[in-house]
């Protein structure tokens, strides 16, 4: 079928399965996402926070052994295989008679809670009533910034991560209509989030109806700041890494004290997030694919740079470029085949890259340096003087009176603290941020300087420099 320009930006079910779920989510990884207890175990093992587990009750015998007095004042009971939030009970306090209190102020004795747990074990809330397992968790106390927008329940922030880069995100607010459930089908609100700043942009209610103000209290739904945004992005990437799900939706609740906690991983992310963001997922996934993301920090930076709202226009020019900081490790491969790793300074004030003389000797350029130095050019006082000597040398070479070393490509006039000198330019193989290329560099004595190498503009065409990166 034809695809118009706008249609090209949108991800459909066919492509989601064939291009993203099938190749990037192995069955073994999907198993992790489908099991809430296993998800929690793996995330906690890697120090990624989730609501902490208080207990798991697998059967009636375990229930009979369970001491309810070990429970804290507030906790949540969940069926592990529950359908659409059924059977979830939230207790937020305990009165002097030992009864627990729910958010609707009803009081429940240990006996009535046991009864509820037996119902879950018997499969009252699972699909087709298969026997189920009970998970008792700490209650997440929702962050105060999100409270005004969430009717009874808690807002749920979802981040879709692909290739270790968060590509799209939205927050779901429960409403009166959705009866406190953060479920769009039931009439909850979905608000898209600007990846760069973590603020809501656009919102829908139900499956697709655009909305500007919260129906329950008329608060504006754009510009809501999601607390701990950077942490959310980081944890989302980490969760994708440790679960092995290359294409995953990570759901968070945000606790007032503990910050973002992962409640669920979803190996088959829904597509409504596109409507909430008023933007397609397809072009973002295409943009995110193929980029090498070595660290979580880089993933966060790419998410902000590539999918942040303000710089959307510049994305075409950003594509295919590597992001680097001011100081980068560079691998040099010399004439003698030796490789040396060196910390280089990125210097956009310089045109050409230059490398320290002693370092170049190590890399097998000693002969060339000695040959060039044998001409014993002095330290010049003025540029004119240097230029005239260069010109003279070029003429001598042309006339065949002196021979240039075959490895020396050209000479460059270098102005430094010591004065103006003439230095040789040679070719060398360098590797910067995983990009390998041959380039021409000036050999200079940098023994008195902190960096043995500076990288100039000539070699930075394929990179983007982020001054905040260290």
């Amino acid at each position: 079928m034809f695809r118009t320009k706008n249609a090209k930006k949108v991800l459909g079910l066919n492509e989601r399965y064939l291009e993203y779920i099938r190749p990037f989510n192995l069955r073994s990884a999907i198993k992790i996402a489908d099991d809430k207890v296993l998800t929690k175990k793996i995330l906690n093992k890697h120090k990624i926070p989730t609501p902490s587990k208080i207990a798991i009750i697998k059967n009636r015998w375990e229930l009979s052994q369970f001491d309810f007095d070990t429970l804290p004042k507030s906790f949540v009971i969940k069926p592990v295989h529950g359908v659409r939030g059924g059977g979830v009970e939230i207790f937020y306090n305990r009165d002097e008679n030992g009864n627990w209190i729910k958010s609707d102020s009803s009081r429940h004795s240990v006996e009535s809670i046991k009864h509820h747990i037996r119902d879950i074990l018997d499969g009252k809330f699972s699909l087709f009533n298969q026997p189920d397992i009970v998970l008792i968790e700490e209650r997440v106390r929702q962050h105060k910034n999100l409270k005004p927008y969430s009717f009874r329940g808690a807002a749920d922030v979802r981040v879709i991560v692909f290739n270790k880069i968060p590509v799209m995100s939205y927050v779901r607010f429960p409403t009166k209509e959705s009866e406190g459930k953060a479920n769009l089908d039931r009439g909850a609100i979905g608000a898209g989030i600007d990846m760069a700043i973590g603020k809501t942009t656009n919102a829908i209610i139900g499956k697709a109806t655009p909305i500007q103000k919260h129906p329950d209290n008329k608060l504006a739904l754009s510009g809501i700041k999601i607390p701990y945004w950077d942490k959310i992005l980081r944890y989302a990437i980490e969760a994708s890494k440790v679960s092995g799900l290359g294409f995953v939706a990570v759901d968070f609740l945000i606790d007032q004290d503990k910050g973002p906690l992962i409640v669920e991983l979803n190996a088959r992310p829904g597509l409504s997030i596109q409507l909430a963001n008023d933007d397609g997922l397809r072009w973002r996934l295409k943009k995110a694919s193929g980029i090498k993301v070595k660290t979580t920090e880089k993933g966060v930076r790419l998410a902000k740079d590539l999918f942040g709202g303000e710089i959307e226009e510049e994305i075409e020019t950003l594509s295919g470029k590597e992001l680097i900081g001011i100081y980068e490790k560079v691998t040099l491969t010399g004439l003698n085949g030796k490789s040396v790793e060196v910390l280089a300074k990125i210097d956009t004030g310089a045109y050409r890259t230059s490398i320290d003389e002693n370092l170049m000797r190590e890399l097998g350029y000693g002969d060339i340096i000695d040959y060039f130095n044998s001409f014993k050019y002095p330290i010049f006082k003025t540029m004119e003087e240097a230029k005239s000597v260069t010109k003279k040398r070029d003429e001598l070479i042309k006339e065949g009176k002196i021979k240039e070393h075959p490895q020396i490509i050209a000479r460059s006039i270098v102005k430094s603290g010591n004065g103006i000198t003439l230095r040789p330019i040679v070719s060398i193989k360098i590797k910067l941020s995983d990009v390998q290329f041959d380039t021409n560099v000036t050999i200079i004595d940098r023994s008195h300087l902190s960096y043995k190498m500076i990288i100039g503009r000539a070699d930075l065409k394929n990179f983007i420099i982020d001054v905040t990166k260290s």
Partner: protein
Amino acid sequence: MDVIWNILLDAGVTEIDSIKQTFLLLMMLPIVSTLVGFSRHLLGLKTINTYAPLIIPFAIYEIGTEGVSTKPDIENSIKLGVVLFLIVFITTGAIYYWVLKPLRMHYIPKTTLIVTAVSISVIASMIYGTLIDEYGLIYVNFFTLVMMIILCEGFFAVFARKNFKYAFYISLQTLIISILSFLIISAKPLHELIFNYPILVLIAIIGANMYIGTYKGLRLSEYWRFRSLIFRPR
């Protein structure tokens, strides 16, 4: 195909015509299956399960050729097919929502109760039909009835997993796909094509499925779902 008929004749098989009919239907099976794949992946229609849209067209076809042999016309077959479909759907819905939903029971006994209700409902409809001089249902072949009654399991699963509104819409879509498939398998030119060029038909089926199976574009229904993103000036 004549080669096959000759082999069968030489082997002493009689009633070649009825065997021809069976061969034809067997060749129709992948064609209907292709149509279901097309409806799902290119049009974006949903069906209650994969079994229903495959079996209903053949059930309707069977009603037309076997049941009311006095007047085997397409219109009557569709009418009876739809009536049976509705009897099964309505009975399943009524029993599930009014009786079984609040009960905590295992899956198979629950399904059995639904099958029981649907069978009784079909018998009642047959009797009622004779009272109002509609003799269609009573002549429907037993296996055709079984095929239709078994649909209740699919309906039940959707009622349990989703809600009535959703179940209604996808049942309607299932019925539409089934009727279209029935119309296609009843088309005489297609029968000729299968008898004359069976290899060509097979190649077409394989080709079509390769295309549908690797199609990554948006479904027609998704152009509607994401219309706010797609159809607007940028």
